């Protein structure tokens, strides 16, 4: 057995390490990411009657309710986009971001038992959680496309075909931002459990502060509120997504920069702090 064992040399130092990303190790455990993702996918809908149908049913019903409440009753102007379609898009992308964030924020607390017994890069769990949110999004997306085709044939919407290439980036950024914030929160929850309570509430507030149930154009002319809205890092993905899919949306350079900077910062800070907590959390949880 003359394997080059030194490839696997690991140095553990009691002194505080400089911050590290450890992404190489995560890559070595890529099979684990796939397995975790599969496991969650198969286990979530075990012993449910409708099974994976829930994946489509929930966002569909939510969008119907949104359309009735916000467009029908509150009379929000969706710029001529059919209510159902508008809310399917908004809700779909928001859910990707929100569930990536919310589910990740529980990583350490939920997996404490496994983490106490065996080492593997904890980030694999976070990434697989995001992948699960992505997969669920893709299923919803397929439904959106089907409904979109119907309205397209009816001539009621016109997607921005020229921007189609941006679509994967918009989706990835929404997922990655959720991941970054999620791991950040999960690292902090190991010490301050209050944050757990705050997450659900915070995400809900954030949703209303983002053009999800209303288009950004609704705020035009409202001055300060509109300007603040541009800085919201979820504004650009939301507007861009609807622009691409439905042809209606407003993209401001400030929003785009804010989104890119915020996503990068959240991911970097999230992973760095996550890696630090990963080494000590077992003593504090």
């Amino acid at each position: 057995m003359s394997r080059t064992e030194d490839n696997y040399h690991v140095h553990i130092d009691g002194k505080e390490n400089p911050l590290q990303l450890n992404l190489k190790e995560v890559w070595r455990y890529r099979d684990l990411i796939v397995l975790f993702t599969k496991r969650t996918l198969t286990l979530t809908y075990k012993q449910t009657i409708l099974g994976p149908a829930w994946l489509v049913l929930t966002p569909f019903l939510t969008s119907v309710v949104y359309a009735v409440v916000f467009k029908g009753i509150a009379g929000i102007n969706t710029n001529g986009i059919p209510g159902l379609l508008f809310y399917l898009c908004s809700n779909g992308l928001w859910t990707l971001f929100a569930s990536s964030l919310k589910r990740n924020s529980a990583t350490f607390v939920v997996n404490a038992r496994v983490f106490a017994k065996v080492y593997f890069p904890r980030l694999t769990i976070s990434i697989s959680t995001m992948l699960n949110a992505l997969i669920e999004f893709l299923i919803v997306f397929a439904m959106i496309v089907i409904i979109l085709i119907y309205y397209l044939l009816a001539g009621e919407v016109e997607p921005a075909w020229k921007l189609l290439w941006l679509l994967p980036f918009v989706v990835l950024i929404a997922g990655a931002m959720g991941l970054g914030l999620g791991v950040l929160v999960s690292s902090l929850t190991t010490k301050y459990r209050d944050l757990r309570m705050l997450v659900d509430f915070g995400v809900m507030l954030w949703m209303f502060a983002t053009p999800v149930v209303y288009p950004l154009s609704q705020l035009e002319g409202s001055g300060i509120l509109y300007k603040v809205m541009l800085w919201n890092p979820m504004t650009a993905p939301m507007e861009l997504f609807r622009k691409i899919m439905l042809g209606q949306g407003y993209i401001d350079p400030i929003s785009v920069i804010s989104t890119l900077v915020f996503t990068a910062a959240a991911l970097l800070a999230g992973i760095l702090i996550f890696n630090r907590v990963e080494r000590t959390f077992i003593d504090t949880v």
Partner: protein
Amino acid sequence: MSADDKIMIQIRDLKKEYRLGQIGYGTLQKDLQSWWAKRRGKVDPNSKLGQEERIEGDTLRALNGVDLTVYRGECLGIIGGNGAGKSTLLKLISRVASPSGGTIDLYGRVTSMLEVGTGFNGEMTGRENIYLNGTILGMSKSEIDAKMEEIINFSEVEEFIDTPVKRYSSGMYVKLGFSVASHLDSEIVIMDEVLAVGDIAFQQKCINKMRQSAREENRTVLYVSHNMSTVRELCDRCIVLAEGKNIYDGDTEEAIAYYTRYLQSRNETVTDYLSKNRRAINLTDQIRIADIKVLHDVIPMGGMLRFDMKFNAKRNMDNIMVRLIVCNGPGEIVGMAYSDPVHMNEGDNWFAFSFPVGNLASGEYVCDIAISEYDGNVDVRHDFLSKVMAFSIREERTYFGRSWSVRRWGNVVFDTIKAEEIRHEQD
């Protein structure tokens, strides 16, 4: 031994501190306070200072400067009492927790079996769990595919491999978990008493498997256990941990003897037998052991252990017996001896006892002492002291050119078997 001089694990001055008391609910305010003090280079107002001991303020030093070098192909046993730091050491090596000071260098992949079947999911089948558990432990999917048959065969649960593991018995669960972990291609294996579960036959199979992988595949095994017979069987070298320090490092047999003597020396500090804490239940308060004096604690094989005991009785009593439960170094019971029934007078009584140790093999022993009263009908336990009287048996002779091996032959040297040729009458 198959160990060579390639270093696999190098540990230098390893320390691990735990904060005592409530942790995890630290308030933000305190943390900010500490952080601010640290920034300005001042003493943290939230840290308490104490003497240079294992507990300093509200920190416990679970490991207090451990140095250790382990070579390739070695089976290293780690023994020590509860709270000596054994599990902490394994946790640090398996990277579940991080050290507070010192360094660890690992020259190979590590499989840690701090628990078997970690990450098993009840809803998933045995096969699916092999994949999941294997990848958690660091195998790639293709490696698992290659070893799948071997793992299933070893686990002895072939028939149920496609059944969700929530329907498994706990034994099957452990078997499957162990077989996944033991088939990894890692260079270093860490086991924390995982063998304590599962039936004896499977335990033996696991030990053989681990020995084989050390001998033939040159893997390095670290094994923690309270069960000295498995340590003897598996390990060539042993370290003794006590109070966070490595107090002995060497041959397994000698390490176990050292550990036994260490435990005794700690017990000898208690000379006030009357106030010694009685852990046993259902004791009367009629008689208490007040003193024990062993005249010679090193005796030859087949010799006589002489000791005097002082009893404090509340009334006159008949049919009082002393029972010695003789345990070997690791604390396993070897046998029991009882004294003649004696009469006790109210107050203090001194008795001299002579215990012929008979066929007890050479080694270290320690006795539990029970005082009981048996009148032909009921057996009443009056007093019980655990691990109070230690003695050792030394012998000069050898067996087949070597000294008696407790690991191979146990604690009893039976009398020589008489052999006689059977002569058939030839008619």
